[in-house]
């Protein structure tokens, strides 16, 4: 799910469950590696009460600055709209899955 400044609040901050958001940009090499991992994760966790989304930092400047995104890829894990953990750099699917499952 691709989010932006206009729907981020509603989709993530007002969501009662757990969420993982991948902040990325087109010009970022490591983001291109993270992207497919996030998509696989989303497919594997389909049907579970967890939202997996991505935000293009260039297209969503206010969301990016709200969460102090200063290095990408940045992955933020939310629960009930609150930031649980911010991860920067490339992360493996197994690790992200484990972190999300702990919140379910």
């Amino acid at each position: 799910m691709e989010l932006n400044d206009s729907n981020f609040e509603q989709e993530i901050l007002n969501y009662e469950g757990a969420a993982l958001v991948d902040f990325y940009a087109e010009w970022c090499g490591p983001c291109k590696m993270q992207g497919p991992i996030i998509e696989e994760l989303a497919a594997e966790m389909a049907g579970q009460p967890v939202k997996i989304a991505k935000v293009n930092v260039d297209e969503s400047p206010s969301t990016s600055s709200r969460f102090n995104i200063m290095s990408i890829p940045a992955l933020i894990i939310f629960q009930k709209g609150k930031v649980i953990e911010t991860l920067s750099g490339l992360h493996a699917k197994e690790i992200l899955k484990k972190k999300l499952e702990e919140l379910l």
Partner: protein
Amino acid sequence: MNKYDVIILGGACAGLTAGLYTGRRALKTLILTKDIGGQAAITHEIENYPGVGKINGFELMTNFSKQAEEAGAEIKIGEATALEIKKGKFLVKSSIGEFESASVILAFGLEHRKLGVPGEKEFIGKGVTYCATCDGPLFKGKTVAVVGGGNSAFDAAEYLSGLCKKVYLIHRSDKFRAEQVLIDIVKSKSNVEIITKVEIVEIVGKERVEKAILRNGEVLKLDGVFIEIGYQPKTDFIKDLVKLDSIGQVIIDKEGKTNVPGIFGAGDVTDTPFKQVVISAGEGAKAALSCARYLQNNKGLEIKPDWTRRK
């Protein structure tokens, strides 16, 4: 536990090439790496890898990884934290679990050298960064400092001067290792201020970087610190097992062997005198072939040559 014939630590030029070769020898191969393509993947253009002309680093490294996977190597994203010998086998502990193998190829390259000052570690991803081309665009219109005096520092300063309001270039000496042409370009930029013979002693902020304190007591208000002071091997976790040189690089012989039978090395993490994509790729191949020979001779594993490889 997952068992392999060979575990390759590192997934850039050396590791992916090693995986291509061991995969083609039908060796059960795991490439365990924290990213794909390492330093080469964040290089904008590579013009000296023969046979492909001018190519974007990320694209070249994606090709490397595809080819290794097509040859049968399995790639997992994770970081090794320990390497042990257990009952004649190698045990790799990592951020994503434990793996066992009959041989290991060390090919995890170098990591960015750290300044080692308070605040640096705490603000990684919150204003402290080691890659101008990766994170530069996130500092549009901001004030940043680049630390270093070599080509990568001047490259970063030049690139950032086009994006940022103000760029400080801070270097501990007044002599630069960068090429003069590059120094002249940076000096000509009106929004770059070069500060020499001083070091950052602390990076300070609340949620993110807000200022840098210099040794002379001066305080710079800024949003980002780009650290460009070179590279170093991250070999602490193997130092009790594998022989390293004085700067922590893995010592290998001309066949890519380390002092431990069954452990091989390739690429920038080793004491190879030149750090280049093509050299790392060549060394990866060499280490893989040595490794295959070792498994055949010492472990009685039947090695199938490339040309009879199963599809």
